[in-house]
């Protein structure tokens, strides 16, 4: 039980640090981005990836034996790791990447919003409850949609 409390506090600390590091800053030096999120440095992509992969491995292990009931923390770890990848900078940040990011952030918000609503209603239809959903589901969906859309767009521009 104490282990869960400590882990919760660790997650609260990590989330607080993320909120502090990615706070909105006012910057008029880059046009069109007067109000923008202060993104994390490039190497945070690797940290996010390691967190996600480790959480997936732990999720796999905890499927077999879970004495402290810690499975939900691994789900939270996956969505936090994916969020960190989303909120970190690219290797070269220029105005096209910023425009691309704005576009895909909006796109992913839109798709995951309706995706989650449709999924929840379908779940209700087959006899589930609307309250079956935890916070990690929309978070992960949004991050995955964002990452795939962003990289698809970037590849399209690079190969054109």
């Amino acid at each position, binding site marked *: 039980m104490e282990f869960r409390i400590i882990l919760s506090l660790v997650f609260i600390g990590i989330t607080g640090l993320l909120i502090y590091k990615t706070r909105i800053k006012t910057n008029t030096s880059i*046009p*069109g981005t007067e109000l923008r999120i202060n993104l994390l440095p490039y190497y945070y992509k690797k940290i996010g990836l390691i967190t996600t992969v480790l959480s997936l491995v732990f999720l796999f292990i905890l499927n077999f034996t879970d004495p402290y009931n810690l499975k939900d923390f691994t789900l939270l770890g996956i969505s936090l790791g994916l969020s960190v990848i989303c909120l970190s900078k690219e290797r070269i940040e220029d*105005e*096209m990447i910023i*425009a691309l990011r704005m576009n895909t952030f909006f796109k992913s918000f839109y798709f995951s919003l309706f995706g989650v609503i449709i999924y929840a209603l379908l779940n209700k239809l087959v006899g589930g409850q609307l309250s079956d959903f935890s916070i990690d589901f929309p978070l992960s969906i949004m991050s995955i949609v964002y990452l795939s859309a962003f990289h698809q767009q970037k590849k399209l521009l*690079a190969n*054109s």
Partner: protein
Amino acid sequence: MKNKIKIERAIKDLTQEELAKIIGVSRQTINSIEKNRFVPSTVLALKISKLFEKSVNELFELDQFD
């Protein structure tokens, strides 16, 4: 919008990579500007025009779709 960056780049004998490095953007950005997929900001357009020593109006011009 049409642009003559590719022609000017050929005259100056610069690759996309070199031009990108000089004005501080990625090669993909130069590529997509040349292919008319991305409209650069005024700041970037002025940087390009300063490098090629031509006015922005000579480099970029409107077409019938604008």
